């Protein structure tokens, strides 16, 4: 007979601290655990040394023309944009930085970090500096400088760990103060570098803008609710794209546009009549009549492209069709009705405003057509391509998973056709053929055609990613939504699409990154994007001949910095949205 066994576990028993491992012990366990592993470790270390030494020797060699890069910064950034109007690009950057500062504050980016982590980062940067000094085949000035910086950072890292003492694992350091420090250091470096004083001042102003808008964001959060602030900010981000490129950088002259005779009357008519229609349709009492009206609006919106009429009316009819289809689903209460009509009025005003700006001639003297270039163009293509492809891609994904055969057929046909064709072909196609599909009076310039081509191309891939997400949603989610009486549209908007998009964030980010890099293909239709500037334009400047390698390496680093940050940001987003996941 066995004695019953009862293990007395008390709550007060605390697990002892995990034994901390020293560097030697860590190395023995992880690098030299067996003879074979030791050989492999040594081999890899040797490889790293050879590679790093080769890279450093290349970078610091006497014949490298690194001074070409700061000298041509304006070309890299904006290419042919007139020097006299550079303020406009600075204002554009300022708008983006202000929004970025507000977003950092309102989304509460960056928590706290522990001294141990912070010290470790400083130490490893310091060690990197020391390694550079040790290995690089470079002028002694650079080696001494690298050694000095490395030593200082190394010691600083150790000091942080020492000063924190016992509390070195507690998260006490604000990441925002670290970022502020980095910003200040960059500011100091900017003032040391041999660049024009005007540029230095502008860069300093931009830095100050970022900090001030961050502080402002904190104030905003105290006044309005978080949800409202975020909603408004997302809207501002979307608006910033056309504002920056259509208004700020294009400097439109509205004198030749029939604002008073065409634009204003149409906008007012659409607000009044469309608003009235939407008010009636969203009241919940429209019933069959409402459905009929929505159908008429949709047919009108599609049919108007076949007959001659102002572009504004075409776009507003399309918008009205979208609103009309959504109104019965999202209307009902008086408040919802009011919101729909307000949203409609705002949408009409914004559309009309930007249409005016689009039709206006540019006020920049002596330039026509594609005067946007360099990194500026790369961003324009990538961001607008992404923004436009998103709704199209989602519609295609929904079409392909729809139960209606006609939608399924069209979506599948589109997706498979576009995915089977290289982007270069789509760009050529867009450049040469797109005008055939549009009314005769519409003339698109090369940049717009490139944006359309990139967006249509990217939408097909996005659709496949989203479809993957839609298929990963358990059947029970659809059943629960249906059992509650939600309509198909409501189920898609509130239940399936949010879950689908969240589950495919990694795939979408991968696509954003490749879209950003693929924009360099527009060089083939004659646009001067960042890579073309780095490859063709800068190395062919008389004063910069022979700098192709340096220029390309610089382009590489810039592309890498942006894509790397995008993927870091997406990791954060994934972690944040992971909360509440089952």
């Amino acid at each position, binding site marked *: 007979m066995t004695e019953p066994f009862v293990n007395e576990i008390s709550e007060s028993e605390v697990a002892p601290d995990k034994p901390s491992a020293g560097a030697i012990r860590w190395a023995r366990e992880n690098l030299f655990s067996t003879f074979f592993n030791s050989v492999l470790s040594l081999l890899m270390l040797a490889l790293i040394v050879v590679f790093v030494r080769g890279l450093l020797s290349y970078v610091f060699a006497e014949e490298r023309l690194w001074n070409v890069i700061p000298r041509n910064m304006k070309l890299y950034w904006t290419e042919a944009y007139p020097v006299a109007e550079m303020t406009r690009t600075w204002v554009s950057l300022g708008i983006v930085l202000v929004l970025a500062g507000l977003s950092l504050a309102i989304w509460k980016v960056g928590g706290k970090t522990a001294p141990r982590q912070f010290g470790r980062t400083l130490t490893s940067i310091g060690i990197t500096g020391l390694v550079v000094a040790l290995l690089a085949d470079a002028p002694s000035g650079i080696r001494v400088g690298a050694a000095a910086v490395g030593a200082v950072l190394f010691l600083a890292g150790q000091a942080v760990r020492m000063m924190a003492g016992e509390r070195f694992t507690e998260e006490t350091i604000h990441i925002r103060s670290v970022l502020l420090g980095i910003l200040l250091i960059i500011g100091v470096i900017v003032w040391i570098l041999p660049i024009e004083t005007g540029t230095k001042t502008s860069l300093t102003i931009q830095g100050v803008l970022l900090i001030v808008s961050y502080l402002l964001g904190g104030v905003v959060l105290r006044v309005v609710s978080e949800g409202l602030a975020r909603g408004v900010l997302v809207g501002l981000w979307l608006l910033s794209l056309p504002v920056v490129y259509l208004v700020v950088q294009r400097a439109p002259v509205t004198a030749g546009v029939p604002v008073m005779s065409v634009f204003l009357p149409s906008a007012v008519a659409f607000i009044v009549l469309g608003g009235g229609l939407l008010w009636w349709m969203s009241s*919940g009492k429209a019933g069959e009549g409402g459905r009929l009206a929505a159908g008429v609006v949709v047919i009108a919106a599609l049919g108007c492209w076949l007959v001659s009429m102002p572009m504004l009316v075409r776009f507003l009819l399309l918008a009205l069709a979208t609103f009309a289809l959504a109104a019965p*689903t*999202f209307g*009902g*209460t008086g*408040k*919802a009705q009011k919101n729909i009509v307000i949203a409609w009025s705002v949408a009409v005003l914004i559309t009309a405003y930007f249409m005016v700006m689009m039709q206006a001639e540019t006020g920049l003297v002596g330039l026509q057509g594609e005067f946007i270039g360099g990194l500026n163009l790369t961003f324009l293509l990538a961001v607008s391509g992404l923004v436009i492809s998103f709704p199209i891609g989602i519609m295609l994904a929904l079409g392909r998973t729809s139960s209606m055969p006609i939608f399924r057929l069209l979506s599948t046909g589109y997706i498979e056709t576009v995915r089977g064709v290289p982007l270069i072909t789509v760009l050529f196609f867009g450049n040469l053929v797109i005008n055939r599909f549009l009314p005769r009076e519409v003339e698109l310039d090369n940049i717009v055609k490139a944006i359309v081509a990139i967006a249509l191309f990217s939408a097909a891939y996005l659709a496949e990613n989203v479809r993957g997400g839609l298929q990963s949603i*358990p059947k*029970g*989610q659809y*059943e*629960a*939504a*249906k*059992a*509650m*009486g*939600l*309509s198909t549209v*409501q189920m898609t908007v*509130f*239940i399936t699409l*949010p*879950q689908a998009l*969240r589950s495919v964030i990694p795939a979408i980010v991968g696509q954003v990154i490749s879209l950003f890099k693929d924009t360099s293909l527009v060089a083939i239709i004659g646009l001067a994007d960042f890579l073309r500037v780095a490859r063709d334009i800068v190395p062919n400047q008389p004063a910069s001949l022979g700098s192709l390698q340096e220029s390309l390496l610089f382009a590489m680093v810039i592309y890498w910095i942006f894509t790397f940050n995008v993927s870091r940001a997406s990791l954060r987003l994934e972690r944040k949205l992971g*909360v*509440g*996941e*089952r």
Partner: protein
Amino acid sequence: MPGDKDIIISDGVKKWFGDFQALKGVTTNVKEGEVVVIIGPSGSGKSTFIRCINRLEVHQEGRIVVDGVELTNDLRNIEKIRSEVGMVFQQFNLFPHLTVMQNITLAPIWVRKHTRADAEETAMALLERVGIPEQADKFPGQLSGGQQQRVAIARSLAMEPRIMLFDEPTSALDPEMIKEVLDVMKELARSGMTMLVVTHEMGFAKEVADRVLFFDYGNIVEAGTPEHFFTNPQHDRTKLFLSQIL
């Protein structure tokens, strides 16, 4: 106590999945306020039957009339009936990206067109009723199985349904959590709700059922009061089934 009016009429309902006939002419009526417990071996068609009542499954022959409206392919009828009929699933099927509060208020706001404030007030009252008001702002993934199922019940009740369907509501729960869900269901039954419950909880059937239906091979084999059913079953299949599970 059940009223006199038939709120669900099922007349010769047949349903095939491919070549397999899941329902072979189910005929039964449910009165307003009646609590009907459906038992039977797995694969007997009991879940399929209650899923036909809110048309998550489409029956091919026969007639189902819910609250005076016949189930046909007319979409508007279906959405109207679904908003009158609440359903609780075995796997809870809460929406993982929404908080408990948002799960409960979603349909009242968008289907019933209630204001957000009203919907939230009702939701809090329902969370009180199922005993977890403190969980309102959590996500479903942060709750235990029993709590999730109680939220699912509250979510269905928020639509103020006239009929509640339960599809094995306790089968996915740990034993220690079954009671908390059954208690909520018992309270609901006593409040006069019309309920159709597919379950293996015989204690629940004995305690609150007005009528027990025993399903096998796609049809009702035996029906009767719990007393009749558990003390004096007539059919051999019923006797065999009860001997195996009791």
